[in-house]
């Protein structure tokens, strides 16, 4: 509560008191610079005070008379450059310490011989029309009983211009303006000085006296310190540019040096021009190259994006295709199974036989679809393994159970030899079983009598599996290509033995993904043996390899 109250009370102080200051053109005392910003000694002083007192200054530009009118009307708080007179004291209030002391001075051409007021006798002198100095200069001349031809003009610039153009012998301005601008017009100051005056900031009579009080306070301090901003401002605005005569011989030397300098600059400019030309050429070819690289990169990025999009579509297509094809087929196989089990009622022998054929064909179709989808996924790089840890022995025993009826039907002996140390493996169980089932299936398919055997052992962190048979075997030439897709179709085996010929190529691809391999030994009429090898734990195997390297 108290804090809030304090904030309210203090707020105006933080925001700063707003002080409007009149500006008119009378540099260097007060005026506008080339950017139209207020400048001059009075501006410097009031800005200094404003900073110290946290005043918020606003400058209002106009003529001298407008400034004084606004001050009286309360439209501005302060008017600078106001000389104290008895008349003005009736309308305005002044601070005590003068901001500037000024006087009027006579300016003439150098060597005009005008040194005292008497030298102006009968001459034309230009003054500011209806100004204080006009009146006081007339009074001065009268008091010396001399006759001077006074010409009034509306502004100080014209005052000097008239003398420069030799339309008059001398000019009268205040010493600040004169010191600043006389040289521009080829004039210099004379020793004729009159009407000294003290210049102040003024407020409307009796108003804003606190502002005047603060200005006095700061002026007093500013004037005590010779390094203060006040003196720096005076120096900045009033210091004369000193010029001196240079001896002739130095001028000649300087000219010669300048000539050399000019030649060498010219030479270096020409050199620089040539370098610039070459640089520009290089820059252009560089830019062209860069442009082409960017273009090509964009093309490649677009092509890449298209390829990736096509890939995503293909992947999505494969996923939905496999689902869409299998769903109806599963329903055919399922219902056939229900009917064959007699769950829907008894079947006669012929119905039983034919439904059995439907079931067999449907199962074959399902395996074909599975193979085609698998190989497409593998070729597209869309097949992902899902490794898990599982016990190898039960997995292999389950597979043997599955194959037993088929082997029994053909009168084949199904042997197995699983080593005692066979334990857990980490790989994709489903894919592993798919590989072994495929190999055993092939073995049974291509063997008419004798045996099919499965052996498994662990060696050096790898699982080694052998699937052997006493079947028809293969020619040496066939061995080269059996792991390539669609080989069975080429060799004409498809006619005799059902299958896509994709099984072995799927096996090889899957094993490669598992970090394993597959190999075969076979001779015609002497059976075949397939050797499968893969790491028991793919991550551990990988780590071991890295360590060895």
């Amino acid at each position: 509560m108290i804090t809030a109250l304090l904030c309210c009370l203090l707020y105006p102080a933080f925001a700063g008191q707003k002080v409007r200051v009149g500006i008119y053109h009378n540099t260097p005392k007060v005026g506008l610079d080339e950017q139209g910003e207020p400048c001059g000694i009075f501006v410097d002083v009031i800005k200094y005070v404003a900073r110290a007192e946290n005043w918020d200054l606003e400058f209002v530009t106009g003529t001298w008379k407008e400034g004084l009118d606004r001050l009286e009307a309360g439209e501005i708080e302060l008017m600078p450059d106001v000389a104290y007179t008895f008349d003005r004291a009736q309308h305005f209030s002044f601070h005590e310490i003068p901001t500037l002391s000024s006087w009027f001075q006579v300016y003439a051409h150098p060597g005009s011989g005008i040194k005292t007021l008497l030298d102006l006798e009968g001459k034309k002198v230009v003054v500011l029309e209806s100004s204080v100095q006009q009146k006081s200069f007339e009074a001065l001349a009268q008091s010396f009983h001399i006759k001077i031809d006074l010409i009034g003009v509306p502004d100080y610039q014209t005052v000097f211009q008239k003398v420069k153009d030799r339309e008059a012998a001398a000019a009268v301005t205040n010493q600040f303006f004169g010191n600043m601008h006389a040289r521009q017009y080829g004039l210099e100051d004379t020793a004729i000085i009159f009407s000294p005056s003290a210049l102040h900031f003024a407020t409307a009579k009796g108003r804003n006296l606190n502002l005047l009080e603060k200005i006095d306070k700061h002026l007093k301090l500013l004037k005590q310190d010779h390094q203060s901003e006040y003196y720096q401002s005076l120096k900045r605005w009033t210091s004369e540019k000193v010029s001196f005569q240079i001896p002739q011989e130095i001028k000649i030397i300087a000219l010669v040096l300048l000539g050399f300098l000019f030649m060498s600059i010219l030479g270096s400019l020409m050199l620089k021009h040539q370098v610039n030309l070459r640089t520009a050429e290089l820059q252009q070819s560089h830019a062209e190259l860069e442009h082409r690289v960017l273009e090509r990169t964009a093309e490649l990025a677009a092509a890449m994006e298209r390829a990736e999009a096509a890939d995503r579509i293909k992947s999505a297509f494969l996923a939905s295709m496999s689902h869409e094809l299998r769903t109806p087929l599963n329903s055919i196989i399922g219902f056939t199974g229900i009917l064959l089990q007699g769950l829907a009622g008894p079947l006669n022998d012929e119905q039983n036989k034919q439904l059995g054929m439907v079931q067999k064909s449907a199962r074959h179709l399902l395996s074909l679809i599975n193979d085609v989808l698998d190989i497409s996924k593998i070729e597209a790089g869309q097949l992902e393994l899902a490794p898990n840890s599982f016990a190898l022995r039960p997995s292999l025993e389950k597979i043997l159970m599955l194959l037993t009826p088929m082997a029994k039907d053909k009168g084949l002996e199904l042997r197995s030899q699983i080593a005692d140390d066979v334990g857990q493996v980490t790989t994709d169980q489903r894919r592993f079983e798919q590989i072994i089932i495929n190999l055993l299936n092939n073995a049974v398919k291509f063997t008419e009598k004798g045996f099919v055997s499965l052996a498994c052992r662990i060696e050096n962190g790898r699982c080694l599996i052998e699937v052997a048979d006493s079947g028809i075997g293969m020619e040496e030439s066939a061995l080269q290509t059996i792991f390539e897709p669609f080989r069975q179709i080429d060799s004409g085996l498809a006619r005799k033995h059902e299958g896509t010929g994709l099984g072995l190529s799927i096996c090889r691809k899957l094993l490669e993904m598992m970090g394993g391999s597959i190999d075969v030994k076979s001779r015609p009429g002497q059976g075949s043996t397939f050797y499968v090898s893969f790491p028991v734990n793919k991550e551990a195997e990988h780590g071991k390899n890295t360590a060895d390297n």
Partner: protein
Amino acid sequence: MAKTLLIIEDNEQNFYMMRFLLEKKGFKVLGAENGRLGVQMALEHIPDAILLDIQLPEMDGYAVAAELKKHHELDHVPIIAVTSYAMVGDREQILAAGANGYIEKPINPDTFVDEITQFLGQ
């Protein structure tokens, strides 16, 4: 007393096959052909188990499993997802979504009912 099973499955043949096999073994079978209806019927009937397909119209199996898990009156009801072997990662996802187990598609008519019975436990 006959146990009641709710099958949420949009494929007519699959639903018929499952219902046929289960009814043969004396189960009472309710069916819902989409996920939204499935949730509604589960809350209405509080079955002894729910068989849930993954690819369903309106609300898929994941959403259904997640929704069913919000209702404590179904806390004791096992949700058995019927997932397709084709979809890698389906099983992990459906278990994470709240299913208690899964049966693989295509269902095997010889073993299907036994598998369901295992989930029903005692």
